[in-house]
């Protein structure tokens, strides 16, 4: 089953809308296996997601990787709140990469959308468990940890376990369960003044069958959810002790690095091993299908050896591809007017052709973008005794394990993947295009010692899985009343973005038409995925229409949003907080943008300007976010700040370009990531609307680029339709 992330939103909407909560322990085989893997003497396992030890320690097993989103802590908060645990005794472990820990909640979020059948949400939970085990689903992505796993699993597990603990205490104290209360890891019988620790109840309580659908707390009863609790992983990240995938080591381990075909789709044709073997410390050169690997007694000799090689690669027929050529081909597709997908309502053609209508059109272009996680790919493999062990970090451990089995030729039960801390992901580490999984499997099987494969930064940049290069042509019409009467978006890229692109404005006639353009590059899940480019197209174009209408861009958006809705509340709040409309110095301007993605509504106002010499200056950002409920407000604010800055970084200077089918950029000097000196102050405000919980890792990003472009238009009169803007504007 191929997981397409653009389906996530439909799935999320369908499931949340149906109000389905987890009864995920319906799959007894998986449950028993998970309990066996987490429980043990003195460790009582509740479902597969949590244990309570005799000493009261509560261990939460997260099926999500925490690469800085803070989801481990937030998921534990959600479980511990329902459990009424003592937070001082709560810790989090990464769930093993085993089918028993397939994320049933994710299946519930995604599968209905994948199949396009919301009715699937009503299937028995055992079915979702089966899907999660086999899909496989241990994904970290889609801003899904809190809104899916937290809501559908963690809270339910906590509440069910709490009930079992209460029932066990009632039996022991011989009192009605209704007379018992729970708090801080104890069950208390106030009448008799007796109380029992969870640790002394756990073993027996875990033998009880857990309720399928325990009542969950109402928001007014939360004790941990909504609190700015310190993240559990941070202390190890300030003293060098946190061990990332790249840090893992075994005795006798060698270190390898790789050079893959510069043109994606190319194959290795020939390579003379001798120049690498002549490098002191190099032990092996291993030719793979489309790459060459050098194994040495350390990274430095491996790198020197790799650089000494002059491998010949084919170009897979893509040797003529350039970025300009891609835009030309995309324009030709749109010109031909035969969309692969067509959505919308009303008669846009009539609106655009209506007598007296004021029409406008604009073409926007965005480049390939690289995730540029700080930790380059690194995995350690050890083939021994007919087994393969691999240590590393990806955004889906179960799928990683399955791919390792596929590439090594070993049965899955002889392959163990050990998920480790990851130095950033941003969508780069989804297994299907995490090439190092295949590389480490093949290299480990070819040698009889442990080997750690590390990608150079140059390899990381050149062999990326990018946000697609894309073109959008927008057309709009204003009616006599100055309101938008028609809106058409024609866009060319690989993926149909319909399910991810929320158009919040009330317009009588809309059309969204996708033209499928296939390059030689992977269509990857870059942070916030298709919402980046479509946020830029839509929020730039509505700004253009506002100016055409002679209206204030904030008021113009306002006039097209449903009264009393969440979008309007977010927009009003960001305008109010930013002092929208107040005077600014010459050369400065404000821009506003509003984008909904992953179930969260986010608006930014950016104040920016241009120095007399053309230097672009970011002055301040205001962000207002409605994700329904913030589980950990401080962490959520950090996510929004980081997303804003990543969005601004891409808008200012990031682009992957192709020449001769190969990537032109190679490292940070030519793929510039924003630094501290450029980072403006960011005011983040959350609206706790009480709506269904939305994602928080990604939604802060899409409004950043259009808000900046709109601000620079306000400051200079120059409309930006091509990203990146550059750090100087002439």
């Amino acid at each position: 089953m191929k997981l397409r992330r653009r389906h996530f939103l439909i799935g999320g909407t369908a499931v949340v809308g149906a109000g389905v909560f987890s009864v995920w322990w319906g799959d007894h085989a998986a449950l028993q296996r998970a309990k066996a893997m987490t429980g043990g003497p003195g460790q009582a396992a509740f479902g597969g997601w949590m244990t309570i030890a005799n000493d009261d320690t509560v261990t939460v097993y997260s099926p999500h990787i925490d690469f800085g989103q803070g989801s481990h802590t937030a998921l534990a908060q959600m479980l511990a709140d329902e459990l009424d645990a003592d937070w001082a005794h709560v810790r989090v472990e990464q769930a093993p990469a085993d089918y028993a820990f397939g994320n049933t909640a994710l299946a519930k979020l995604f599968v209905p959308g994948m199949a396009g059948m919301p009715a699937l949400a009503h299937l028995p939970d055992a079915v979702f468990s089966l899907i999660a085990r086999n899909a496989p689903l241990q994904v970290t992505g889609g801003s899904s940890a809190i809104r899916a796993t937290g809501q559908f699993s963690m809270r339910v597990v906590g509440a069910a376990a709490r009930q079992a603990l209460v029932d066990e205490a009632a039996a022991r104290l011989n009192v009605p369960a209704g007379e018992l209360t729970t708090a801080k890891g104890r069950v208390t019988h106030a009448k008799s003044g007796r109380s029992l620790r969870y640790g002394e109840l756990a073993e027996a309580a875990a033998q009880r069958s857990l309720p399928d659908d325990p009542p969950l707390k109402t928001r007014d009863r939360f004790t941990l959810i909504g609190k700015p609790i310190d993240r559990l992983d941070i202390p190890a990240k300030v003293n060098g002790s946190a061990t990332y995938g790249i840090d893992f080591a075994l005795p006798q381990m060698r270190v390898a690095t790789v050079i893959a075909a510069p043109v994606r789709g190319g194959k290795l044709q020939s390579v003379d091993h001798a120049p690498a073997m002549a490098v002191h410390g190099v032990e092996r050169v291993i030719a793979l299908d489309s790459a060459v690997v050098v194994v040495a007694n350390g990274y430095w000799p491996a790198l020197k050896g790799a650089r000494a090689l002059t491998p010949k690669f084919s170009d897979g027929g893509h040797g003529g591809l350039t970025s300009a050529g891609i835009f030309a081909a995309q324009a030709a597709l749109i010109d031909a007017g035969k969309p692969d997908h067509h959505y919308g309502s009303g008669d846009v053609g009539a609106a655009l052709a209506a007598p007296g209508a004021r029409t406008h059109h604009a073409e926007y272009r965005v480049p390939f973008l690289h995730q540029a996680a700080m930790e380059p790919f690194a995995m350690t493999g050890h083939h021994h005794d007919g087994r393969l062990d691999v240590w590393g970090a990806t955004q889906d451990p179960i799928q990683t394990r399955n791919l390792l089995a596929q590439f090594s030729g070993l049965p899955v039960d002889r392959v163990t993947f050990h998920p480790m801390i990851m130095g950033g992901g941003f969508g780069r580490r989804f297994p299907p295009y995490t090439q190092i999984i295949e590389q480490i499997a093949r290299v480990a099987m070819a040698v009889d010692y442990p080997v750690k494969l590390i990608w150079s930064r140059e390899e990381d940049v050149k062999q990326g899985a990018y946000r697609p290069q894309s073109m959008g042509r927008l057309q709009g019409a204003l009616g006599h009343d100055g309101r938008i009467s028609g809106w058409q978006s024609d866009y060319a890229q690989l993926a149909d973005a319909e399910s991810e692109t929320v158009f919040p404005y009330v317009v009588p006639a809309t059309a969204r038409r996708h033209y499928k353009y296939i390059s030689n590059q992977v269509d990857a899940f870059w942070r916030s995925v298709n919402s980046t480019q479509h946020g830029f197209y839509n929020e730039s174009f509505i700004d253009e229409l506002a100016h055409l209408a002679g209206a204030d861009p904030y008021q113009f958006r306002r006039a097209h949003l449903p009264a009393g809705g969440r979008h309007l509340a977010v927009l009003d709040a960001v305008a109010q907080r930013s002092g929208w409309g107040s005077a600014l110095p010459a050369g400065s301007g404000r821009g506003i943008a509003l984008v909904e993605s992953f179930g969260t509504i986010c608006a930014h106002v950016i104040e920016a300007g241009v120095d007399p010499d053309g230097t672009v200056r970011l002055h301040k950002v205001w962000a207002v976010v409605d994700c329904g409920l913030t589980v950990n407000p401080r962490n959520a604010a950090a996510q929004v700040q980081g997303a804003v800055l990543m969005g601004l970084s891409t808008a200012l200077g990031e682009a992957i370009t192709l020449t001769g089918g190969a990537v032109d950029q190679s490292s940070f000097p030519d793929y510039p990531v924003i630094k501290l000196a450029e980072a403006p102050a960011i005011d983040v405000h959350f609206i706790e609307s009480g709506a269904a919980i939305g994602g928080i890792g990604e939604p802060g990003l899409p409004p950043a680029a259009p808000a900046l472009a709109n601000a620079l238009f306000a400051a200079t009169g120059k409309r930006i339709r091509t990203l990146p803007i550059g750090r100087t504007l002439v």
Partner: protein
Amino acid sequence: MAVEAQVNGKPVTFQGDDDTPLLWALREQLGLTGTKFGCGIAACGACSVHIDGEVARSCSVPIGTVAGKAITTIEALGTPTAPHPLQVAWIAHQVPQCGYCQSGQLMAAAALLAHNPHPSDADIDAAMTNICRCATYLRIREAIHAAAGGAAEVAA
């Protein structure tokens, strides 16, 4: 070749060719993996250490140049019982996200404070050129001000 130096107060002997970057000698020979590999060309700062008290990007420092020098890595910036004030501030301000660059950020910030105990925002801008893809920059700034003992200046 063997190069004798001091790392975190202890004498060490690095093996390997003279051009071996200090980063890899620290990580692979001494197991000091708190110092991270980010780019290998001194562009990102993830590998920052102190050499004789000055911040240096160890991916681009050949071991042939560190004979007799005193090197400090993140592992010795503080101790569990006596953390560096920046480490305390980093936790209080919940600075890290993925955390991968933070060893380098802390070493760069520690060198800054050693030379300039009360840096201005402009001083921080100039000194803190390490890349953080999670973009924890605003909290890095706050935490440096906090560790310097003053209230954070309002960023421009």
